[in-house]
């Protein structure tokens, strides 16, 4: 397995840190940092782009401020996936949160997103997921995660283009 992969459209780089139980992602958007924070914290915007194509996401709880928490369920046909977490920090250019897939209730990752202003209305998102072991890190990378990520960010690109983000 390579420690670096790209999504199908080449826009997102995903890599394992060689020494840490950490997955890093970077992706550029035609958006300001404030728009990207909104896309990750405004419930009406978030449900429109999160997850792979064909998956519907319903927020069960959403309190996107420092010390708040969230829970959502994604469905496709008979499939149902529930997730929950806490917002440790919601800042102007940074979000730190915990993340658990309810199918593995003892698993938890710490997710940090930092939005780097590139100027000219472009922003680079730096996202990291800190997980409990190097094995978990490698499992995530080989899970096909890049499909959902690619679909989700492509949807977000379109929302931004339509002025909805």
């Amino acid at each position, binding site marked *: 397995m390579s420690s670096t992969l790209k999504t199908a459209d080449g826009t997102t780089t995903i890599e394992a840190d060689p020494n840490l*139980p950490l997955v890093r992602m970077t992706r550029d958007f035609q958006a300001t940092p404030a728009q990207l924070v909104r896309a990750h914290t405004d419930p009406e915007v978030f449900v429109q782009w999160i997850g792979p194509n064909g998956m519907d996401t319903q927020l069960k709880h959403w309190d996107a401020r420092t010390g708040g928490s969230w829970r959502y369920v994604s469905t496709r046909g008979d499939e149902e996936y529930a997730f929950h977490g*806490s917002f440790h920090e919601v800042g102007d250019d940074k979000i730190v949160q915990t993340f658990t897939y309810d199918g593995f209730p003892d698993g938890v990752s710490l997710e*940090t997103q930092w939005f780097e202003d590139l100027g000219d209305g472009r922003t680079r998102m730096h996202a990291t997921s800190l997980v409990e072991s190097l094995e978990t890190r490698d499992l995530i990378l080989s899970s096909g995660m890049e499909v959902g990520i690619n679909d989700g960010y492509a949807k977000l690109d379109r929302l931004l283009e339509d002025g909805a983000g």
Partner: protein
Amino acid sequence: MSTTMKTADGTTTIEAVEDMPAIRMSRDFRATPAQLVRAHTDKDLFVQWVGPNGSNMTIDHWDARTGGSWRHHGDLDGEEYAFRGCFHTVRDDRLVQTFTYEGFPDSVALETMWFEDLGEGRTRLHVHSLYDTYEGRDGMLSSGMEVGVNDGYAKLDDLLEAGAV
């Protein structure tokens, strides 16, 4: 730096995990798992034992349920030390929370505690703290944390012995 240390009274083992930016602690108590969960989630109990001796802890915010959050500060020799985080999981057998010392606001640890019933009213507390860098982990290990850990757990021993938990 040694990778394993004991608190002054020898009761608590604190070790740096090899190949992971993590700290592992374990300590036995004359208590049931339920009492130890209560000691970590009931704010009126928690404030009586957490932190080094003489630190005058104050709880600023406390919502000890899955999806809740907390903040407390201590006052030691005229200096204030504040900490905050989220309760990601609050269960009978497991607590998961985020932890930030506000003096280093960008550093976040993910702390997991579980309670191993040893029988005959004894329980082993396991604490696993995951950092996103080795520097963050080593900074915590060399900060003198063992003093606060030792003092705090000794105070908790006294509360348990007094039947207050």
